[in-house]
């Protein structure tokens, strides 16, 4: 999974990811592409599951559990989510 920012991607998906993530952000860290789930946001496995479920609801998608181990940062999640939205709704 690339950590590159998602230039050509839809702003809607990025905005939705950030909006949902903000409701799970207990640290007050400013969310950026490089923000890391474990180190910066203190996410544990339980919180990851809850957050993913909320994201799935928000965007009406299924995020396979398989993609999660490769996602360390917010930017990587945005890229992966954009791809899922394209596949499921595109």
């Amino acid at each position, binding site marked *: 999974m690339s950590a590159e920012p998602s230039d050509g991607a839809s702003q809607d998906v990025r905005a939705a990811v950030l909006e949902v993530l903000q409701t799970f952000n207990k640290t007050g860290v400013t969310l950026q592409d490089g923000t890391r789930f474990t180190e910066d946001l203190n996410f544990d496995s339980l919180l990851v599951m809850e957050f993913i479920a909320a994201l799935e609801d928000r965007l009406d998608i299924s995020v396979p559990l*398989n993609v999660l181990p490769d996602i360390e940062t917010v930017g990587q999640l945005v890229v992966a989510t954009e791809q899922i939205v394209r596949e499921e709704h595109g």
Partner: protein
Amino acid sequence: MADLFDRFESLRARRDGLVGDGGHDPFQVEMDEVLSQTEAMIEGRRTILAGTNNYLGLTFAPESLKAAHDALDAAGTGTTGSRVANGTYSGHKALEHALCSFLGKEHAIVFSTGYLANLSVLSTLVGPDDYILMDADCHASIYDGVRMGDAQIIRFKHNDAADLDKRLARLAKKPGNKLIVIEGIYSMLGDKAPLDEIVAVKKKYDDVYLLSDEAHSLGVLGRYGRGLPEEVDLEDDVDFIVGTFSKSVGTVGGFCVSSHPQFDLLRLACRPYIFTASLPPSVVASAKTSLELVEKGGALRKRLMRNAERLHSGLSALGFTLGGDVSPVVAVVAPDVEIGVAFWRGLIDGGIYVNLALPPATPQNFTLLRCSLCAAHTTEQVDRIIEVFAEVADTLGMLPKQPKKKAALG
């Protein structure tokens, strides 16, 4: 230099925070002597066991004890190897035949535990181009099994057939098989799957299979104890049934049954079947005999449900919040982990053993005092469980002022 075990620091901290004060540790209970299906000596005290999965009380069934003794004497203490590498005993085949005729499927494979049955089947049945759609509240063995495999893993909301439908609809254009995974009775709250709704959704799409883990419902539901599919008359719509001998059947071991013509190929594909030792003859013999008792166990099921209703309504009348409907698993929701631990200790001091279940192993992050019933519990024992719950709540100052009103323990 970093110590190897530093990586468990957060686990250690959590444990010490919960039970580091020298009090009873809910996760290290020692039964000094098992007195019966429903009683054991714990810390020198005669204790009522309300935290086993011994739903029908078959662990001391005379017929099963005799079968186990006979097999032990005839075939020895163990098989010393796997079925594939070291050979199948006649008992293994006989048990598989018994499972086929009991559950009405063409094929059966016995595994060394239910955990290994799930690892085996879920890691091999579906491949990289396939999809698993699993209920989010599924057991750890299901999570571990699907993670061992290559299929895409999608979770749907617990017991929510509409959510499953939505997710299947989005996959409809994609090639690949889809395997839905549910449980008959969910282990923590004792709630049942809405099997009719799930089967209806399954039938809307092509290439969809259904697997149900009947670990907690085998022996418990259905006139003959064949689990949830029998109870709701949908046995032909469930393609794969996984089960365990460690609960109602009263011993250890796991299985999967199916009528798929190629089912036996799994024996050559499942690593947790090939690379572990097979069940010893005595266990196989008692499982087979106990399965017969399960099938004939209508009276036991009645007694079990009577006990379940008594405990459920007794605790509910006291004002406790319960996790689900009446079922042999009665889960009391505690307001937080600390109160849960204190409550659990109060119960054990009062001679009642239940399971303490904590997040993340619980649905909705509940802290649960999980009680499970046995057909062999007497009415007096059930009443005693209710009484001690009331006493402990009283000591901790937590019973609601208004009985009958449903409220959390706080």
